[in-house]
């Protein structure tokens, strides 16, 4: 026993003191009822949000005839859109394609609902023009040149896309008349709500709720409870530095919290992958989003864990010290939705964590900003249908929600670089808090 420590490899060395503290901490958590209550409450809270999401995905969204051309104003059995194509008068019952030789059969009115969907959702960056007049009502033979090109870019029946570099967002689309004017509300809304759900549950459910409340209840007492119970004496009487006890406790806490976050992310990810809209059975493309959400939450629980454990070590009622931090982080989370480029966000943990999710959303859905801009424009006639429908804006359902939850990363660098920088900043924050926390613990006199 007296010989100096043998040359161990890293894993054997880790398995010794630090591993023992970690293993002890994990076993201790598993025996505590409070651990399971907290994890269970987190599960229920997330599940409720998921239920709302699944319900909204099941709901049918009413198809709206935005341009009103499915209606048969003159009662001759031919919808207005069909009559326009054939050049007959939609307001004269005597004039309709049935009088042609050979006569043309009337279309079902449904054919003229959602018949001119968006055709510019996959516009590559740098494109300045997009759109296609599916129903042909812009390209009518008897229309004049200026009717076909009323946005005056010398391209008939298109939409001008203008990305404003200064403001960092797309300007309101400037379309020729009757181009992409009757979009498929259901298709757009389902996709927008799905994306908004992923961003919302990732940011507020995972990073904020799980990311702050798990550490608040599980990490604040890591050292403090042992001090209050006087069981810390067994650990302090051993040849292990307090800094390593602190780290071992944190690693043990992460050993409970991280697998839980991964499991929760996997469960919600699989549910939303099946329930979400799309051609295929499962939305594999969202995988990157879920990886980012899980990763950002893991980093948040690491930093907050270090912080709250240090505050608990500092004062018997560390949770009271932790609450202002939690409130600050909530404020920063709200700020990140309204003013994502605000530099005060750099003085928070959640600002950097949310950056990771926002950056990932740009990687997974590269046309996100354009997609939002499309929905806000809504085809020009408005989500309320032809004639207004009482709505003050033209946006399609889901566009507003998505616009609220999607934020700019505010760093002005590429999404991948944003993820790397944010990760490094969070790890740096964790390292600083570890040093501060162990310094507090080291200077603590314990009776």
């Amino acid at each position, binding site marked *: *026993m007296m010989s*100096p*420590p043998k040359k*161990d490899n*890293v894993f*054997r*060395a*880790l*398995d*010794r*003191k*630090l*591993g*023992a*503290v970690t*293993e*002890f901490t994990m*076993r*201790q958590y598993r*025996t505590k009822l409070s651990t399971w209550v907290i994890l269970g409450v987190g599960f229920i809270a997330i599940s409720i949000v998921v239920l709302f999401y699944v319900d909204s995905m099941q709901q049918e969204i009413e198809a709206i005839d935005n341009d009103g051309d499915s209606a048969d104003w003159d009662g001759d059995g031919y919808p207005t859109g069909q009559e326009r194509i054939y050049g007959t008068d939609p307001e004269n019952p005597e004039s309709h394609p049935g009088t042609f030789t050979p006569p043309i059969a009337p279309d079902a009115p449904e054919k003229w609902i959602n018949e001119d969907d968006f055709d510019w959702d996959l516009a590559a960056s740098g494109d300045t023009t997009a759109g296609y007049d599916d129903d042909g009502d812009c390209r009518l033979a008897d229309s004049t040149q200026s009717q076909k090109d009323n946005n005056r870019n010398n391209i008939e029946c298109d939409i001008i896309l203008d990305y404003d570099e200064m403001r960092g967002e797309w300007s309101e689309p400037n379309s020729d008349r009757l181009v992409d004017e009757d979009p498929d509300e259901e298709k757009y809304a389902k996709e927008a709500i799905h994306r908004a759900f992923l961003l919302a549950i990732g940011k507020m459910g995972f990073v904020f709720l799980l990311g702050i409340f798990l550490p608040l209840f599980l990490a604040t007492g890591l050292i403090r409870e042992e001090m209050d*119970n*006087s*069981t810390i*004496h*067994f*650990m*302090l*009487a*051993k*040849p*292990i*530095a*307090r*800094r*390593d006890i602190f*780290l071992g406790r944190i690693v043990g806490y992460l050993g409970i919290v991280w697998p839980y976050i991964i499991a929760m992310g996997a469960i919600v990810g699989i549910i939303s992958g099946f329930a979400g809209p799309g051609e295929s059975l499962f939305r594999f493309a969202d995988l990157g989003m879920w990886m980012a959400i899980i990763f950002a939450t893991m980093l948040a629980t690491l930093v907050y864990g270090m912080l709250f454990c240090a505050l608990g070590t500092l004062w018997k009622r560390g949770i009271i010290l932790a609450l202002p931090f939690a409130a600050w982080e909530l404020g920063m989370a709200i700020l990140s939705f309204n003013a994502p480029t605000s530099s005060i966000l750099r003085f928070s943990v959640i600002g950097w964590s949310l950056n990771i999710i926002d950056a990932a959303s740009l990687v997974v859905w590269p046309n996100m900003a354009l997609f939002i801009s499309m929905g806000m424009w809504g085809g020009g006639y408005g989500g309320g249908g032809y004639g207004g429908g009482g709505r003050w804006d033209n946006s399609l359902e889901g566009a507003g929600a998505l616009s609220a939850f999607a934020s700019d990363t505010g760093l002005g660098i590429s999404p991948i670089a944003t993820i790397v920088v944010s990760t490094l900043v969070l790890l740096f924050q964790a*390292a600083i808090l*570890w*040093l501060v926390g162990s310094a507090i613990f080291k200077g603590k*006199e*314990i*009776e």
Partner: protein
Amino acid sequence: MMPDLQQVGEGETQQWAPNITAPVVLLENVSKSYGKIHALSEITLALSGGVTGILGSNGAGKSTLFNLLMGKLKPSSGSIKLFGTDPWKNPAPYARVGFVPEHEKMHDWMTAHGFVSLFARLNGLTREEAKSEADRVLNFVGLTDVAHKQLGRYSKGMRQRVKIAHALVNDPELIVLDEPLQGCDPLARTTIMNVIRELGKMGRTVLVSSHILHEIERITEQIVILHNGRLLALGNLHTIREKMDNIPHTISIGCENPKELAKDIINNDAVYGISFPSGDRLQIQTHNLNAVHRELPALIVANGHKVSSIDNPDDDLESILKYLTGGLAR
């Protein structure tokens, strides 16, 4: 900042080795105060080998002294060295120290074996080494057959023995026991005392605190008496007691016929007073305890008295403290 993978402690402790010439425990002018309250004042003490009892009434500073030794408190002034190293700055010496805290709370959800082997790993043992070490120390305190029961189901005495077992891991050279006998049943008391005596015989340095003199007396003769944070006396219990012999003492003798015994005893010069608290008990006052104790057995045997007990009711911590403080104690 990389974690310390060797886990011996802090960077400076990687190559830690005890200072062979330094005493196991060395305190120089150590004081600890909380504001105006002086928990310990100017304690100077050097200990190496053998069992030493730390005696003092509640609040005398025993626990403060131990907490300073175990690096849980920082001295207000003075220096503390374990094997030549300051334990507040460097936990490395604890590789050779076992500590039994006085606190009752333990991790009740663990088994004794799980508890001892897990904390043995903090001494740098591997899992396998820790398990066999746990078997060894639990056997040493006589708990082998219940080693796999949860601590929550243990009696107080058994828990105390588990704490001692946990302190004996890695065969430490210094064992510090804070009130190990408090609240224990007689069986556990005897076991614990035997373990402590055994450790003393093995040449370990053992520090035992207590506020009950006769407990300490059965384990050791070397004592340190603390009173109000000051070191009142240090040395052999009998030497201290002999000094007390020349002050008034009471001896209480339980016997069949106290009156007959009194007649024989009254002739002794050292005895100056006699009383009969009950029908089978004789109480004598003396100012030379030693002389009475020397002659009393012969006297009893010569006159055929039937004696059931001889007690010194004054011979407790309070009277020693009273003597040492010149009547100022209490």
